[in-house]
């Protein structure tokens, strides 16, 4: 019994001791779970859980008609891990060979890339974007250690079209300039996240039911750009820059009523698909990020200020010195030519610096400054583009004695092209200045409008009456008597102003120039305001000749595109003119001639004595206006002068073919027409006698278009 008791006792003592172990285990489980649990679970999160991002698609960029300017496409990226277990030298060579077949790069390019990579590198990118075909071919090789990744690429469908406005993206698809940069956050969207698990070899694998945050796709931009107008603008700007051998050119087209930018171009331009292929200098958008002394286009400020302040009378005559130069506070001010006596309209139309500064000096500097400030100079327009600068407008207390006269003609002030355009836009819009903008609205991936940029007015720069009074003045710039005859478009009224600014290089005015033209059309109901700027044109530095010609080409083509912009029909134009033709009066009696002329409401005077008209000035068939005085020379008609059966050949020169034909037919003669248009030669000559039935040969020549337009504008005036 004793032994058994002892054994049993020892057995239960042992059991008690051993039971301490499971008890300790239970306590430890509790401790690990509850007391130390949070820290350990944090450790678990950091080691076993990872998140991979699901890239969001970058938003598209559309023009006003819905054309896709910028979009995305999928590309494949290929990299290799040369240390991957099982990958051999031959494998790498095969990959390089297959790849080189698709990319036209030598095989050695890839093998060198692998061998030149830092040692232990396990991710060597061979090609950032390969074709789907190349992707498939590589994948078919089935070599482990090849890393093929899908990636998005930004595509600019029209290549260089509106490159400076759109900007471009870097290889991380982040916007670098232009709208891409300005709206980068909106375009980018928010990348989604997928929770994945990692194992101890750091391999990632996704699993069913893993928390997933779907990416929020980027918003799409709907711009106010019109790709047709943009294309026209770019094409004509390029032509202008090339023809004039200019260094660079900028052109902007805006709707003055809303501030919507229709086109914005710089030349030289670049292809945003390959932004690195051109100097960074040419990727700058000069329209917003370049400031310069504007020159005469700034005279708009002077004109508005002077008219609104009532310091100038439209009939007043400004006498400019015969030399065309004048000293103001010891500095010489020059006109491009000696211009003589000018009224206010001519000061602007002929762009007289002397006249303009004379007007400006009548103004209070503070008032002048306020006008310039109100017209947006010295502050940013806040157009939705990055890197906009505000120009430079000195405050009156910073001015020297010559600042006001010089500023009045566009020196000692620095403006950006977009500021100048905005100011002319305000002028075109009856004095109400609109903020320029490029993006009208943003839509999400379902096309729902998320954000809208409504046209917004900045302020009124001048009274409507001031604008109405000034409009004819600026219209007269675009005539032959103005400085911008080259910008005139047949059948369309344009108002604007030329500018030629000597460039300040290293603090001295150099012999290089910047030619510009700012204008709008149709002048009476402006729909387009446009600024053309050519940097250092070599053919002529006059803004009217170089920039004006570009303006004309663009305006002509826009007018052809936009049915709202009507160019008047040539026949209507003639009908609209008080257009009379001097009748044939020779041979008529004095009384008859008088009746005929009074019927036509034409006054006349007579010279000489006689019953019949023997000669008249102007010649029959010539165009006359209401106030033309017709001179009739009277004499006695001697019918015997012309032998019976003969007729006298009239002078047909300067007549047109139709007039000549009817005249000859009336005399019973036939006509042989060579060429067309105005007759410059005839045979037999005038005054010779011929029998009826014979033929008179006339040669005609069409007058050149420029002559016609000159005539038209002279008439318009």
């Amino acid at each position, binding site marked *: 019994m004793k032994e058994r008791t002892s054994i049993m006792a020892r*057995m239960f003592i042992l059991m008690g001791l051993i039971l301490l172990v*499971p008890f300790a285990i239970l306590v430890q489980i509790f401790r690990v*779970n509850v007391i130390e649990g949070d820290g350990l679970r944090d450790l678990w999160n950091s080691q076993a859980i990872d998140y991979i991002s699901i890239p969001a698609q970058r938003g598209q960029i559309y023009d006003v008609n819905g054309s896709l300017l910028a979009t995305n496409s999928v590309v494949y990226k290929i990299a290799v891990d040369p240390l991957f277990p099982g990958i051999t030298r031959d494998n790498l060579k095969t990959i390089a060979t297959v790849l080189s077949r698709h990319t036209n790069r030598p095989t050695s390019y890839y093998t060198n890339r692998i061998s030149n990579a830092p040692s232990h590198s396990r991710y060597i990118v061979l090609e950032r974007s390969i074709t789907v075909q190349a992707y498939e071919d590589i994948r078919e090789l089935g070599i482990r250690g090849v890393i093929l990744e899908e990636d998005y690429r930004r595509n600019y469908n029209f290549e260089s079209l509106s490159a400076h406005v759109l900007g471009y993206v870097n290889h991380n698809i982040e916007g670098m300039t232009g709208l891409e940069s300005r709206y980068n956050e909106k375009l980018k969207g928010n990348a989604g996240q997928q929770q994945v698990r990692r194992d101890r070899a750091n391999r990632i694998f996704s699993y069913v039911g893993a928390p997933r945050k779907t990416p929020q796709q980027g918003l799409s931009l709907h711009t106010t750009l019109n790709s047709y107008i943009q294309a026209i603008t770019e094409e004509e700007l390029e032509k202008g820059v090339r023809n004039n051998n200019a260094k660079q050119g900028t052109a902007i087209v805006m709707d003055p009523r809303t501030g919507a930018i229709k086109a914005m171009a710089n030349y030289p331009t670049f292809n945003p698909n390959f932004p690195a292929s051109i100097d960074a200098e040419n990727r700058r958008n000069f329209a917003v990020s370049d400031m310069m002394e504007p020159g005469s286009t700034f005279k708009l400020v002077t004109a508005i200020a002077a008219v609104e302040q009532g310091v100038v009378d439209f009939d007043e005559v400004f006498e400019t010195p015969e030399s065309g130069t004048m000293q103001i506070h010891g500095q010489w001010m020059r006109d491009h030519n000696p211009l003589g006596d000018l009224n206010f309209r001519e000061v602007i139309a002929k762009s007289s610096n002397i006249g303009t500064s004379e007007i400006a000096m009548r103004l209070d500097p503070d008032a002048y400054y306020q006008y310039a400030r109100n017209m947006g100079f010295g502050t940013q327009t806040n157009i939705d583009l990055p890197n906009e600068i505000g120009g430079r407008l000195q405050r009156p207390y910073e001015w020297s004695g010559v600042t006001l006269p010089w500023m009045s003609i566009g020196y000692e002030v620095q403006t950006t092209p977009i500021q100048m355009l905005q100011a002319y836009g305000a002028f075109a819009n009856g004095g109400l200045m609109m903020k320029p903008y490029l993006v009208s609205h943003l839509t999400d991936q379902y096309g729902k409008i998320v954000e809208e940029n409504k046209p917004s007015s900045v302020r009124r720069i001048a009274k409507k009456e001031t604008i109405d009074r000034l409009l004819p003045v600026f219209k007269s710039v675009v005539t032959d008597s103005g400085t911008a005859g080259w910008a005139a478009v047949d059948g369309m009224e344009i108002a604007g102003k030329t500018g030629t600014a000597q460039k300040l290089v290293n603090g001295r005015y150099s012999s290089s120039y910047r030619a510009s033209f700012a204008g709008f059309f149709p002048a009476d109901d402006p729909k387009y305001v446009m600024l053309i700027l050519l940097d250092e044109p070599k053919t002529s530095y006059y803004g009217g000749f170089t920039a004006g010609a570009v303006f004309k080409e663009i305006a002509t083509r826009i007018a052809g595109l936009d049915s709202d912009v009507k160019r008047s029909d040539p026949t209507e134009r003639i009908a609209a003119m008080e257009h009379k033709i001097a009748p044939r009066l020779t041979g008529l009696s004095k009384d008859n001639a008088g009746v005929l002329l009074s019927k036509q409401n034409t006054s006349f005077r007579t010279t000489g004595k006689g019953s019949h008209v023997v000669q008249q000035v102007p010649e029959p068939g010539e165009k006359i206006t209401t106030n033309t005085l017709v001179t009739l020379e009277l004499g006695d008609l001697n019918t015997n002068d012309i032998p019976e059966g003969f007729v006298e050949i009239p002078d047909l020169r300067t007549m047109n073919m139709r007039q000549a034909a009817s005249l000859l037919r009336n005399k019973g003669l036939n006509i042989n027409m060579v060429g067309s248009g105005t007759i410059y030669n005839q045979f037999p000559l005038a005054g010779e006698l011929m029998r009826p039935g014979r033929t008179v040969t006339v040669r005609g020549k069409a007058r050149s278009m420029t002559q016609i337009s000159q005539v038209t504008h002279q008439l318009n005036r």
Partner: protein
Amino acid sequence: MIYTSSNSDINSILGTSPNEVETKGRKSDRVLLVSVIFLMMFGSLAVYSSIAYFAQGHGTSAGSLVTGHIFKLGIAFFVMLIVSKIDYANLAKFSRFAVLISWLLLIAVMVYGDMVFGAKRSLSIGGFSFQPSSFAAVALIIHLSVLISEKQDYIKDFKRSFLPIMIWVSITCLLIALEDFSSAALLMAISLFLMFVGRMSVLQISAIVFIGLIGGTALIMSTEQRQSRVVQYVNQITDINNTNFESAAGYQAQQAHIAVAQGQLFGVGVGKSTQRDFLPAPYNDFIFAIIAEEYGMMGSFAVILVYVLILFRGFAFIARNARDLLGTLLAVGATLMITLYGFVNAAVAVGLFPVTGLPMPFISYGGTSMLFAGIMIGLLMNISKNSRNSKEFYIG
């Protein structure tokens, strides 16, 4: 009654006359059986969940490995049933030879064994992988029980009882220790526990423990690597969240901690363990961590309690009611073999013990240990069947 028979005959103590007790129609312990089945089922699920990584690395599927596991469980179960039918007195007759054969196998494994995890532990015989150390442990426990019950009359004698017993134990443990130190240490502990229960001198046993402690300390101090492991072990208990590890074992212990912490009350769900990807041999050494992660505190507590139930059942019912001292000692030894392996594995998984490579009986993946765990349970069932008391001790 056997122990208290008036003549206190050695034969009655040895229990060589089984006919003294009526055992016909008696059933083996059903609680034990249900517990084992529970562990096997739980284990199969845990193995299925945790073996995928291993399967991937060996070009096979988790499914086929688990099928193999269940097949082995079936064999173990079958062996268990057979052993439960053989009277343990008969088994005892061959214990001496079994130990001698185990020694030969242990030597053979050192020469011909397969390398697994840097140690030679298994022999391939006809396509089956076989670990002699498990066999040796079973053989030693049976033989130890036989020796202790044989030497009851002079059990506290140093020369006649302690020395010869220690020779058997030492040789077996030494042979195992050469390749698998932790198994040997555990076997040594079980042997000492058995000797303690078998009324051997506490002083002599203490001396062995003392020598073991001295030797162990000397062993630890001998190299810096071992010292750092001890420091690491202390750290892992005191500062669970520390991520500066002295050794790889520290990293493993922490990963096990993370697994346990992930489980919380109800676990992350069947087959949803993530820590199986971070733990070494999650299907074997760290299977308890996986159970704790997937089934939470509820699941891990249940497993521990099942082992406690086996311990309680083995000691308080089977060993206490065994018909003779041999039965008692065999029951104690077998119970310890099952439960201590389970507890040590769990203690390692929760970071209480330093990292060892001991399997969890009936749960871990692995054939040989399961087979001998089956033999142990079979032995316990046989002892319970041949117990001297009436049915009231048995359920079902």
